[in-house]
């Protein structure tokens, strides 16, 4: 960085936002031919930015912000209901508390097959948003995924990328795209989906880890996506983009589809996870955070469903 004429000063000059206390410094800087070159380079970069039509990019930003607002509002409502004992029977909470540690003997019971994963090859990658919460080894956590995304200092934050949504603070990116007419639309938390939408899931880890992805709908129907049946979590290699082999076609059920990504740096079986998700009472399927052993992290994305 040029300490005599730093970038931040040139930015102010370029934007004509030089405060009084910097006027003299800015005047001196502008007498330097090198500064003029740097300013011109910045002007050209700004021009290129404006030429690529930034409006769609901002529309995406607005969509993400609105999605987070909706998710946060839903979380507040849920917390309010819990506070007043509405919607979550005490017995159900007790059930969650009593869940045994996850690393148990794997069961061989198959997943309910309310829907099938359609064997549809995808062209362009499809997209979605995750709300990560890591290491919930304590008592049943009241915080929701939405709250996680709304608290930048305490929880990993999320940001959409060209390829999906990165769960910052955790070394994995989960993407869900909806295949549209000739294009793939990135989905974020709170985005509405419809029956027969085709969703493509992909993920990429920044470090070696084991992961699984399942989805749960409002009726309690569970679908395994990665792996595609109950079994061992799949190892992810750092930096390797994994596109699930099949797009997933949403069925006619109403309410929502919630995708869960669970990962750990050690191998694990998915059967216990399935059992825990199945045990969630209906009122908590949209907002619950799983109680997991230390060393596990989870992320979920909630997509409300509506009829066309």
């Amino acid at each position, binding site marked *: 960085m040029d300490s005599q004429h730093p970038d931040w000063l040139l*930015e102010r000059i370029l934007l004509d936002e030089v405060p009084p206390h910097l006027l003299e410094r800015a005047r001196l800087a502008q007498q330097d031919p090198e500064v003029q070159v740097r300013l011109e380079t910045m002007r050209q970069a700004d021009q290129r930015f*404006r030429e690529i039509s930034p409006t769609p*990019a901002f529309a995406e930003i*607005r969509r993400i912000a609105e999605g987070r607002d909706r998710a946060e509002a839903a979380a507040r409502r849920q917390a309010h209901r819990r506070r007043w004992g509405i919607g979550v029977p005490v017995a159900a909470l007790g059930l969650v508390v009593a869940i045994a540690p996850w690393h148990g003997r794997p069961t061989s019971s198959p997943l309910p097959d309310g829907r099938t994963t359609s064997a549809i090859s995808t062209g362009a990658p499809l997209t979605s948003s995750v709300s990560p919460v890591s290491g919930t080894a304590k008592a049943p956590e009241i915080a929701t995924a939405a709250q996680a995304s709304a608290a930048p*200092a305490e929880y990993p*934050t999320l940001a959409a990328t060209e390829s999906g949504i990165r769960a910052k603070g955790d070394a994995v990116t989960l993407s869900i795209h909806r295949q549209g007419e000739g294009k793939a639309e990135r989905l974020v938390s709170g985005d509405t989906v419809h029956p027969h939408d085709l969703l493509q899931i992909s993920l990429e880890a920044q470090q070696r880890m084991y992961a699984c992805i399942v989805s749960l709908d409002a009726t309690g129907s569970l679908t395994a996506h990665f792996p595609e049946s109950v079994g061992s979590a799949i190892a992810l290699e750092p930096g390797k983009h994994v596109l699930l082999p099949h797009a997933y076609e949403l069925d006619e059920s109403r309410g929502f589809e919630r995708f869960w990504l669970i990962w750990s740096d050690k191998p694990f079986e998915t059967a216990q996870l399935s059992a825990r998700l199945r045990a969630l009472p209906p009122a908590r399927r949209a907002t619950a955070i799983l109680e997991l052993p230390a060393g596990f992290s989870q992320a979920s994305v909630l997509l409300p469903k509506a009829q066309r």
Partner: protein
Amino acid sequence: MSLDVENLYLRYAPLVRRRCQQLLHDSALADDAVQEVFVNCLRHQDDMTAEYPSSLLFRIATNVCLNVLRARRRHPETHDDEVLLSIASLEDEGSALEARSLLARIFGKEEESTRVMAVMYHLDGMTFDEVAKETGMSISGVRKRLLGLRHRVQALKEVA
């Protein structure tokens, strides 16, 4: 009066992008960070006022990048990286403050993040006076806040 975030984006996104690239050295991460900056602006737009939006966005971008760096814990490649990562990993003064939203400070509800001030001072080369004016604090306040960080960061500078 709150600011129109879309107009802010159209005018200031290049500045924010350059700032994020400068701190993160990674185009994809910088793009993420730009998006995060303006998502946060949208979600706090009712609280946003600024005589110089460039200054406000510069600080928000710095804060977002510090969070990214702290989360990634990557290996520093340059000396400035090392200083920046050390700042990113530092806790701000006061656990109570830290427990609140860093953005709330930037949006004027809390005092400025010490980490952001440290970046301004140690990496951007601002003087105490300039940091104070940028953040609306007194010079003595800035000096006091940075004192706890100064020795550690200075030690890193001298090593290189």
